């Protein structure tokens, strides 16, 4: 797999990214409400309003605005937030680690849980664990993360008060960390007590995000495991005296992962998209949570910045999944 292929693949993402940028630009310029009017004090004169409008470049014709927009993006200048009066790029990048950490923890957990459930359901086929796991999958898939988040809050936050229902850490606690990647950094530094304190805040949001993905992985993988187990190479392994468990993990699983990744790949992206709502419900200080306030204040530059951040994230995630597929399927590598 050459770097040429990688470059080509990256290049293919550009048209999509461009389309995304155009849509963001167009959508946010069709605002019926006037963000400037929301910002100025009541005694402002029309001249003041016009001046402010010029500062934000909202008085020029559409085409000019678009070119200026593109130019600014290329320089990394995403403008200044109207409601928070700070640099948008800085704001977004500041909150991004929190969202990334949440998404990462959720994805890793989903993978482990989904694969484990699929393996158990296949190994214990025909007995009650398979039945229970199938039922769990159906239920987990039918409700979106929003509802799971609310149900979890009620169940584990209020009725049985096990976990905190908002925020990222205890405000009275000193963190002493350099980056915004709280959990990762504390693990890397070996500060396991701090990590243990941070973890409860991640449990419910991560769980709410993971449940649909776990169900998708478990279901797909169970089906492809069953397909793999009737193949000749499994028969060959059995003839060579390997135990059922070893065959399942060493022989069937690597083959079964291939079709499963194709299907599950799209759901990883849905998971990252789900952070927008879950962050809101759990008051988790990530990028998605910022969106709500920005929307209420019609803060165009901030909304723009957040949307572009998510779009770039999605495109990158797509790329990672495609590359992952190449890694696990040797047959595709050589064509």
């Amino acid at each position, binding site marked *: 797999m050459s770097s040429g292929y990688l470059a080509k693949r990256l290049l293919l993402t550009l048209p999509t990214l461009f389309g995304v940028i155009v849509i963001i630009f167009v959508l946010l310029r069709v605002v019926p409400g006037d963000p400037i009017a929301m910002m100025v004090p009541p005694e402002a004169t029309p001249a003041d309003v016009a001046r402010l409008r010029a500062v934000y470049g909202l008085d020029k014709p559409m085409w000019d605005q678009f070119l200026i927009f593109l130019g600014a993006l290329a320089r990394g200048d995403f403008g200044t937030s109207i409601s928070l009066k700070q640099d948008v790029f800085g704001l977004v990048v500041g909150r991004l680690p929190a969202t990334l950490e949440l998404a990462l923890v959720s994805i890793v957990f989903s993978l482990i849980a989904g694969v484990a459930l699929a393996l158990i359901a296949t190994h214990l086929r025909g007995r009650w664990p398979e039945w229970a796991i199938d039922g769990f999958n159906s239920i987990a898939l039918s409700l979106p993360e929003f509802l799971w988040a609310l149900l979890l809050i009620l169940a584990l936050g209020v009725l049985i008060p096990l976990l905190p229902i908002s925020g990222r850490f205890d405000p009275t606690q000193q963190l002493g960390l350099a980056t915004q990647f709280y959990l990762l950094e504390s693990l890397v530094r070996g500060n396991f007590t701090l990590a243990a304190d941070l973890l409860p805040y991640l449990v419910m949001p991560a769980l709410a995000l993971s449940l649909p993905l776990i169900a998708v992985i478990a279901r797909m993988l169970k089906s492809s495991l069953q397909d793999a187990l009737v*193949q*000749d*190479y499994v*028969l*060959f*392994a*059995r*003839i*060579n*005296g*390997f*135990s059922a468990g070893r065959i399942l993990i*060493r*022989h069937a699983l*690597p*083959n079964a992962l*291939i079709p499963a990744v194709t299907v599950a790949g799209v759901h990883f992206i849905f998971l990252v998209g789900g952070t927008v709502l879950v962050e809101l419900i759990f008051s988790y200080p990530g990028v998605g949570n910022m969106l709500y306030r920005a929307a209420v204040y019609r803060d165009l530059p901030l909304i723009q910045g957040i949307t572009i951040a998510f779009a770039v994230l999605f495109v990158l995630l797509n790329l990672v999944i495609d590359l992952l597929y190449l890694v*696990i*399927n*040797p*047959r595709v590598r*050589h064509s």
Partner: protein
Amino acid sequence: MSVLAIEGLRLAIGETPILRGVDLAVERNCVHGLVGESGAGKTMVGKAIVNALPEAARITAGAIRFDGRDLIAMTGRARRRLMGRAIAMILQNPMTALNPVIRIGDQMADILAYHLEVSRRGAAARAAAMLAAVHIRDPERVMRLYPHELSGGMCQRVVIALAFACEPRLIVADEPTTALDVTVQYRVLRLLKEMQARTQSAVLFITHDLGVVAKLCDEVSVMFAGRIVESAAVADLFAHPRHDYTAALLAATPRYDRPASTLTPIPDALRTRLLQEAERV
């Protein structure tokens, strides 16, 4: 004592009887052919020996004795210890027998390390040696490849190498050359004979091809409708077939020296009579 002795084996899938009392014996250093039409039950015999029967299949009577011990009566664990070490099998389709996502070298090292109880590195060295023994040039390169990058003949050589690696006492070969080109067939069969002579293993060679039987086997059993109808040394069977079915089978084989208009299929009357006999048993 025979290496393999099948006594009165009966097997059914659901309500349908597949094997109706099979008696068979294979001696050490002997290649024993098992011939019959498709659907006669040959493959089921092979699968019963290596415990690879489909889920719905039930053994209703009989024993499969390996060096005197009944395999059917053994515990799963004890039987598994024999598999691959004392008893090996060569499958029909070599391309699908190997795991498509694991390199050849890794697959071989896995199996050899497990059977010979050596380290991975030792196993890898053994694997290279085995590949050379089956006449594969440049074993190091082949070991880094994936199965889909090899030809059918080469895959079968790998499978044969693995089968003989532990010098098993019994090898069950289920139509090992049927999926290969004729020219490749000849080479693979010759290789089989060579390996067998070296290890002195007993071989149960399941096939529908009488020509292969003539070239390769020492003894042969003929099967029809789940029963063995005749069993003899190869030369005897071909020269003086004792059972009607054997004679009909031999006569049905197309020959190059006879004109095409003299194709003689097995007569329906014979078939019906034999089926009725089989069902009464």
